[in-house]
């Protein structure tokens, strides 16, 4: 009985220490909006026939919109935050995730300019980079986000192996489902407890 109690206390301490070091700047509502943007873009795209360059341009616009939305929220939370610990975690989150965004942007620019025939590969690369970006945040966000990261990487690999053309769902489904899962995890692990 005392052993069980000791084990449960150790587990409680670990969980509490991990919660106390979690970044609470990413919110489920904003993440859900990015999921809806991805699904909306997919539906619109399915009804329209787009050239590969138009396909990429559409998704670059969606990505810029989503990044702007999340960055604005992060900035406002940072500005209004009372906690220095959370401000420091916000800085860490940006530092860890930004390289993946920059590399994704650079790859897109280079391929757009020098390898337009291989643009079909971009959705897979974006998904793999996004998955790695989420994995890099694992120490400061709820651990199950790693599962979403793995989901993105898997989707990227499937896209890489399965298609040589740009299907509307090759972007919409992975990002729609992935962001919805992220929103659910953020709500469940960060917001639900705070609301209680």
């Amino acid at each position: 009985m005392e052993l069980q109690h000791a084990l449960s206390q150790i587990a409680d301490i670990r969980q509490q220490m991990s919660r106390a070091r979690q970044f609470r700047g990413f919110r489920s509502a904003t993440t859900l909006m990015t999921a809806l943007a991805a699904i909306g873009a997919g539906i619109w795209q399915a009804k329209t026939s787009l050239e590969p360059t138009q396909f990429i341009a559409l998704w670059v616009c969606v990505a810029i919109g989503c990044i702007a939305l999340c960055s604005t929220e992060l900035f406002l939370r940072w500005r209004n935050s009372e906690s220095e610990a959370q401000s420091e975690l916000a800085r860490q989150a940006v530092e860890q995730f930004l390289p993946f965004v920059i590399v994704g942007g650079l790859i897109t620019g280079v391929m757009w300019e020098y390898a337009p025939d291989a643009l079909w590969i971009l959705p897979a690369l974006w998904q793999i980079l996004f998955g790695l970006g989420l994995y890099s945040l694992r120490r400061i966000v709820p651990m199950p986000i790693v599962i979403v990261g793995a989901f993105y990487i898997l989707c990227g690999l499937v896209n890489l192996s399965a298609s040589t053309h740009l299907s509307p769902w090759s972007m919409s489904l992975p990002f729609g489902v992935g962001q919805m899962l992220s929103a659910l995890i953020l709500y469940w692990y960060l917001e639900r407890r705070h609301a209680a």
Partner: protein
Amino acid sequence: MPRDASDPSRRSPGSYAFDGLQRIIHEKARLSIVSSLAANPEGLVFTELRSLCALTDGNLSRQIQILQSAGLVEVWKRVHKGRPQTLCRLTDIGREQFLLYVAELEKVVASAQQAEKSTPNTRRPSGFDRAIPSF
């Protein structure tokens, strides 16, 4: 015969006892406060601590007062971004006592594990080793 829990040599495997200051940490709400502060050596704002530990203002104030009068926690006020704030952090004694408390819990687990190994006829439940976390 009642067990003398304060004498480690007389304790049965898997049992534990906390002395003085550690007994103060042992209470659930206070353990949650101390664990949160241990993860943030620079300290936490009162409102953040309240939200992390899911406590009311009154309960948190009471528990912090107990920890503060035991010398485990220090509280100070400051103005941040033009707003007054109350901050808390573990003192050196508080951190030391927290580590001793965790060490005591780990000792319980280690001694139970030792007892389990020394009785080869006892069937060990599957996943026993994996269930023991380490810091």
